């Protein structure tokens, strides 16, 4: 079993090593890669995560079921609704009330999920355009993304962290006035997304940068348990909305686009298609919103009898799975979160091997990484292969000494 990265070797495999991260202009979040390079080709990749590990699973065990809702929303900025949703549904399964949720609440859940997917995908392809040197497109997509953020603000009052879910339903209803206000905006957004698609699919220098780069074959996508758009770009139909339907997804008509090249361009075209489909789904759910206004939640007991619940949802980045166990008290006994980026890391490490150094930013971008915040760094001495890890305190003390002694202090 050597197909996954073994520990960093004592003597590097390549000519030299490049350390990228935890803080680097190509990353929007802290993750650290050590690339061992031969010429311009990547031979070996090691990766270090955990810079933003906040011990949130332990914190879940110390708070009540309702308080945890607000903690779950803060797992991530862009896909906060997906995490909160997975937690709320897992808790509902645990309390055995999952089948009693009002239909209107289930449709509102679909609407928020799809709006979140639209804003996340638009953000993603804007940043991909930026990473591949197409900054005009980056500004265009981010300008148009304001429309969907405004819609989310109309519905929930917030542009991020919508806090719409509660255990047993949703917290806010959508009124008739709001629907008549939102639908024209979504139709306008659809035209703009169509335009983005046309521009991106016809700009040849932009496409040349992505085609046949970092190919992930169908077998590899399955072997490394890839999820979400990453796996769908490699022709694995793993959309949780279809294969394990939840809330009202089995009542809504939609297609799942699949792409079989498995390169970066596949990931882009797939997400461009998904954005358009999500807009259609949101319009469809808004037009067919069932039930009586106000019938959006049911009462849940404060204590949940000993039981277990597991729920997966399709977050913008892929399958997001939450597991909860209750012990009869007001607090969960165990809560486990598996975010989609975590599941995509093994396949990312695999597909980075053999790439060119210049392709690193778009390849890392293709899984839509969503990570967290920095606390320490590692220096690798290439001559001896020795590495030492430094904490925040070390860095401060080294900085102080550097002030006194000059830059000699950084030599080992």
């Amino acid at each position: 079993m050597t197909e996954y990265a073994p520990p960093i070797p004592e003597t590097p495999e390549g000519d030299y090593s490049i350390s990228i991260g935890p803080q680097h202009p190509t990353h929007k979040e802290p993750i650290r890669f050590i690339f061992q390079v031969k010429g311009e080709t990547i031979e070996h990749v090691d990766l270090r995560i955990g810079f933003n590990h906040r011990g949130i699973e332990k914190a879940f065990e110390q708070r009540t079921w309702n308080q945890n809702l607000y903690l779950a929303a803060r797992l991530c900025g862009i896909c906060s609704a997906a995490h909160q949703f997975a937690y709320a549904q897992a808790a509902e399964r645990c309390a055995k009330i999952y089948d009693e949720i009002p239909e209107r609440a289930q449709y509102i859940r679909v609407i928020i999920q799809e709006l979140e997917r639209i804003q996340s995908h638009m953000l993603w392809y804007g940043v991909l355009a930026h990473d591949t040197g197409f900054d005009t497109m980056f500004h265009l997509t981010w300008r148009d993304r304001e429309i969907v953020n405004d819609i989310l603000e109309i519905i929930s009052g917030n542009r991020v962290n919508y806090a719409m879910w509660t255990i047993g339903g949703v917290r806010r209803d959508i009124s008739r006035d709001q629907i008549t206000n939102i639908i024209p905006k979504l139709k306008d957004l659809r035209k703009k997304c169509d335009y983005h698609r046309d521009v991106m699919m016809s700009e040849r220098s932009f496409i040349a940068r992505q085609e046949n780069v970092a190919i992930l074959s169908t077998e590899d996508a399955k072997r490394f348990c890839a999820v979400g758009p990453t796996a769908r770009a490699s022709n694995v139909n793993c959309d949780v909305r279809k294969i394990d339907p939840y809330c009202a997804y089995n009542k809504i008509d939609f297609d799942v686009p699949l792409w079989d090249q498995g390169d970066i361009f596949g990931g882009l075209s797939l997400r461009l298609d998904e954005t358009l489909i999500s807009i259609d789904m949101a319009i469809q759910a808004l037009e067919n919103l069932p039930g009586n206004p106000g019938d959006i939640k049911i009462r849940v007991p404060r204590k949940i009898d000993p039981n277990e619940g597991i729920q997966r949802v399709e977050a913008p980045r892929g399958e997001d799975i939450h597991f909860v166990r209750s012990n009869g008290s007001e607090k969960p006994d165990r809560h486990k979160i598996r975010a989609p980026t975590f599941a995509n890391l093994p396949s990312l490490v695999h597909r980075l091997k053999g790439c060119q150094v210049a392709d690193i930013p778009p390849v890392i971008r293709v899984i839509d990484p969503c990570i967290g915040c920095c606390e320490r760094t590692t220096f690798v001495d290439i001559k001896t292969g020795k590495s030492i890890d430094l904490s925040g305190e070390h860095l401060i003390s080294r900085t102080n000494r550097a002030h006194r002694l000059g830059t000699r202090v950084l030599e080992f």
Partner: protein
Amino acid sequence: MMLNVPKSLDEVAKALNLTRRDPKIYPRDYYVNSSSDRMLEIAAKLKNEFGVHHVSTVIVRDDEDGFHLIYPFSVILDNSEWGKLIVDFLVDKKNPEVESLTPEFPGLVIAEREAYDMMGIRFKNHPDLRRLLTPDIMPSDIYPLRKDITAEEIRRRLAEEAEKRRLDLE
């Protein structure tokens, strides 16, 4: 070899000689109990006979009777839906050592590292069993998600360790 496409999760559980336990009310969530010595056998059978390729994660639960290692296997049913066969392996608390499933499912490589990091489950034949998320200065006897250690205790030990390293450096 022809893959077997099951009609229901009952069929899979029967072939593996497992019985369903509570909670039973959701048809696509199928919970079963097993013990850690059957892990390799069950994983190989699921992969080779039923074509299971997706295991979402490894969940570890610290309970009084031992550690529960929970693997949600995604089984593709004949109506092309994916059912979750949630297998709960009981692991001895004094010696938490089990066979790694990474050779069968390479995608589990970091999920098992996380289980080792957080709960101290040692996986035999894992290609790269190192800590994953905790800081490099985390003392080797602390596994933060175990029930016998509190958040305050972890914070205190980490601060001590950082202070010790700072003094060593100066």
